[in-house]
């Protein structure tokens, strides 16, 4: 578990997301202090990311696959429907999530979906012992 004030995990996450998504908005908040972990830990993060990459990409798995395949045949752009916004962010940060980061709250939107409203902070810890 990281317990240094060097913000190396935070910087690494920011750099990876910046490189992959070229985001219009990128907010990264270390929320570890809200949890039962040592001071200056880098275990709990919230990310708000707005990028053109998410245009046409759904939030959850498209369950109507038959219809989707039909649409892909006629409109190649629909291929994006196979991806899910949050899953894509998780994939980019696989290494971090495997090595110490165990909470990642994600708000991922396309510029069209983004309303510039303040994003509320995550719910309070309820004593899960930093797990």
């Amino acid at each position, binding site marked *: 578990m990281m317990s240094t004030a060097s913000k190396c995990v935070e910087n690494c996450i920011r750099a990876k997301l910046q490189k992959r998504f070229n985001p219009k908005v990128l907010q990264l908040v270390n929320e570890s202090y809200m949890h039962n972990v040592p001071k200056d830990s880098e275990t709990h993060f919230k990310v708000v990311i707005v990028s053109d990459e998410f245009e046409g990409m759904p939030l959850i798995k498209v369950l109507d696959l038959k219809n989707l395949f039909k649409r892909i045949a006629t409109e190649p752009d629909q291929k994006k429907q196979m991806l899910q916004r949050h899953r894509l962010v998780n994939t980019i940060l696989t290494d971090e999530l495997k090595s110490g980061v165990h909470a990642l709250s994600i708000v991922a939107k396309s510029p069209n979906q983004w309303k510039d409203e303040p994003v509320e902070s995550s*719910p309070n810890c309820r004593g899960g012992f930093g*797990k």
Partner: protein
Amino acid sequence: MTSILRQMINVNKTTRISSMTYKQFLSTKADDPIQSHIGKLVKGNKIVVFMKGVPQAPRCGFSNAVVDILNIHKAKFEAHDVLIDESLRNGIKEYSNWPTIPQVFIDGEFIGGCDIMLELHRSGELDKILEKNTQEKPAA
């Protein structure tokens, strides 16, 4: 000549080893008792939640929020506490290829964690998903 033969034998060995590994790789998920156990759990109810703590006393804010959302929708669900079972805690992440807890499954399909449930709740999409769910299999 000998060296060519040796190379051939080596190549053969390597191929055999890698094909065995591939076979093992293919069978891992089906043979893993935890993965097949989870496969049954997610289909054990219309809505299944893997969380930290129990619905009456969640031990994580994100798990608590998911329980709150489902309660707002008066949705009946089955919950499994991953804090009392380390193999379940790691296994569920592998099963859904999703790195965090809580995890919500509807009709055996992975839906998401706290952020996704919150977004589906706010957009009204959760109503549709749950409605469809109830229509297909009426609550007992």
